[in-house]
């Protein structure tokens, strides 16, 4: 077993632990904090089913962003849908046998990398070109975009230019899952790709990348519009009521 294999494997285990505990901690934190008043941005659904639909439109189609800014929406869609396809395609490295749908997605997933990179470059360009966006950009915003672009580029290069040993890579990936380490192909591009992905997983719970979790907890989007029908007392607000009455 090469030192490199052990190192990358160790890095992935560490990243996985940080990623999972970090995200679970955030979810627990958001779930624990009470939401004392109805603050849905109206018009808002008046039923739970309606809220599920609203959230679905928000997460799947970026409804609010579409209302806001069409160019930004196109770039965000290119990146996020591209990433989603690319991630889906990557299941082939973890599942054996490879399910039919993953097989079918393979050609789309491969070229989705370009949509993803294009979207990212567009988003990055906005941070230089539009004065308002330049004003609100901090160094970490550039770093995140840089990290994602490098992940996309290194991945696309291993797919389209400098092929790696896919069979060996799959053995390595499945080895990771079953705690039975198999050697990792030593291609520099692949090692860079995997290392950056691990870094992304580590940064995820502590950065703005968490927006993917936050949106589900956003009270302006996930609340039913029913304040005249129901009281919505937070535990700390209920105490206030008990004290004074």
């Amino acid at each position: 077993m090469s030192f490199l294999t052990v190192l990358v494997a160790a890095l992935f285990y560490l990243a996985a632990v940080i990623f999972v505990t970090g995200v679970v901690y955030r979810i627990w934190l958001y779930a624990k904090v009470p939401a004392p008043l109805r603050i849905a941005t109206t018009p808002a659904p008046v039923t739970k089913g309606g809220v599920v639909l609203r959230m679905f439109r928000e997460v799947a189609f970026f409804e609010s962003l579409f209302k806001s800014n069409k160019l930004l929406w196109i770039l965000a869609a290119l990146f996020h849908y591209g990433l989603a396809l690319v991630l889906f395609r990557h299941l082939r490295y973890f599942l054996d046998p490879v399910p039919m749908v993953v097989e079918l997605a393979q050609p789309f997933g491969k070229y989705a990398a370009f949509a993803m990179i294009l979207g990212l470059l567009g988003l990055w360009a906005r941070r230089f070109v539009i004065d308002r966006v330049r004003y609100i950009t901090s160094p970490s915003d550039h770093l995140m975009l840089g990290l994602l672009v490098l992940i996309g580029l290194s991945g696309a290069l291993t797919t389209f230019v400098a092929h790696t040993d896919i069979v060996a890579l799959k053995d390595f990936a499945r080895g990771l899952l079953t705690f039975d380490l198999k050697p990792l192909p030593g291609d520099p591009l692949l090692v860079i790709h995997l290392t950056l992905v691990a870094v992304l997983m580590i940064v995820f719970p502590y950065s703005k990348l968490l927006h993917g979790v936050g949106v589900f907890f956003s009270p302006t989007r996930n609340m039913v519009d029913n304040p005249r029908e129901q009281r919505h007392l937070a535990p700390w607000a209920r105490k206030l009521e008990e004290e004074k009455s």
Partner: protein
Amino acid sequence: MAKANFEVPEITGVTEVPAVQPDTMAHLETFRAKPEFMEALGFPGEMPEDWKEKAIEAMGDLLKKYRSLQVFLDACVKCGACTDKCHYFLGTADPKNMPVARQDLLRKVYRRYFTLAGKFFPKLVGAVDLTEEVLHDWYNYYHQCSQCRRCSVFCPYGIDTAEISMAAREIMDRIGVGDKYSNEIIGKVFRIGNNLGLPEPALADTLEGLEEDVYDDTGVRVRYPLDEKGAEILLVTPSADFFAEPHVDGLMGYGKVFHELGVSWTLSSYASEAANFGMFIGSYENMRKVSLRIRKAALDLGVKRIVFGECGHAWRVAYAFLNTLAGPFDFLDPNYPVPQHICEFTWEAIQAGKLNLDPSANDDMVVTFHDSCNVARATRMGDKPGGQFEIPRNVIKAVCNNYVDMPHGTIKEATFCCGGGGGLLTDDLMELRVKGAKPRMDALKSVTEEYGVTHMAAICAICKSQFTKVIPYYGFDMDQIVSVHQLVSNAIILTGEGEGGEEEEESAEDAA
């Protein structure tokens, strides 16, 4: 045109997004509340020595109480979707008036003290220590947000800057730094019962005067009762309705509608204020205290229903918070929502054919409607989402023959704030108020030129006060602002109107 000691933006009919000009509004600092007024609300009168620790402690406390604050401070990705949505940014070009930048004033401190990245790599993520300079920015720029929620419509995560600015004001209040306008007004509500400090005798006088006016005008005795026990409906309305123009014409209209339906109603001198400035300063406790006055008034007077007059933020607190803050209202008639908006009430009456209306009474006007921000984006009227847009329009169209909407993107959920909401309706912020009205003025100008609009109707006391003061800066006339129920009042033909007074006195008594 009104004179200004600052540059009034030029209106073209279309609001262009300005190029960023840092610090154009950095000088604008609203007056601070005196210690006695702070203490009356349960806040320290002066800044304590350890104000920084106290502020961070307050932030920590709010983060544990409000999921909105915690999620909103974390979720922003700085995408910029909100940057061109705030009327104050569009009118001032000051980048700190972009919603995300306004949030960042608080977020950068949150990151420094409450996140790993901000503790270890502050420069990288734009985290900073809390300093006097930062506090100064907080004070100035969180008092340049009217909490209108327009940004929250367009944010992909629904981040609502209003929530952030409320939290920021609460944090500042807790270290003795509060603004004069809102805090003194809340004090007046606690002492006297309304924002304007009108005591019971003054209210009684005013209402008697209104009865005279309506009688002179129509020959019908319409009553404007105060503190009448056993009335069916308690009307809670912004105190500006008692004397300001065009608000008072709206109050006349509510009275006429009640009169025609023959329902008994009353105002309360104890709860003579619909507005609840506790929301503006983000103080749950103060908002609750103001709300409880309405509950007490309803109980004391033994009413069956509560109806709110035309007021924007008031309707938000009433619709979305009152039941939670001061409920349960199980002592009221369960057949009606608690509370009801006067527009819901009037629209029902119109649909039931109970009002005799002559829309030609308003034929001298071409009317458009300004959706008040908090009614539009924080409340509802009727059973269906969007009723808050349809019902006031339906009422207007039932009493006016000439109605047109302002351009798409400036009405309904995308409506622009009047520029005076959120506790900013004070003369020391006049520059902000004038500049912040620009997007609405552009929209008004466009329908004025295209459709010959002559009047803009509103259902909010702040909108009406703000516009009557501010539109002269843009070459309009203050009389162009009307109350929705002023239009109703004009069109309504009272039973027996024009037939001489005698029998009307009887029916008025029946109604009471």
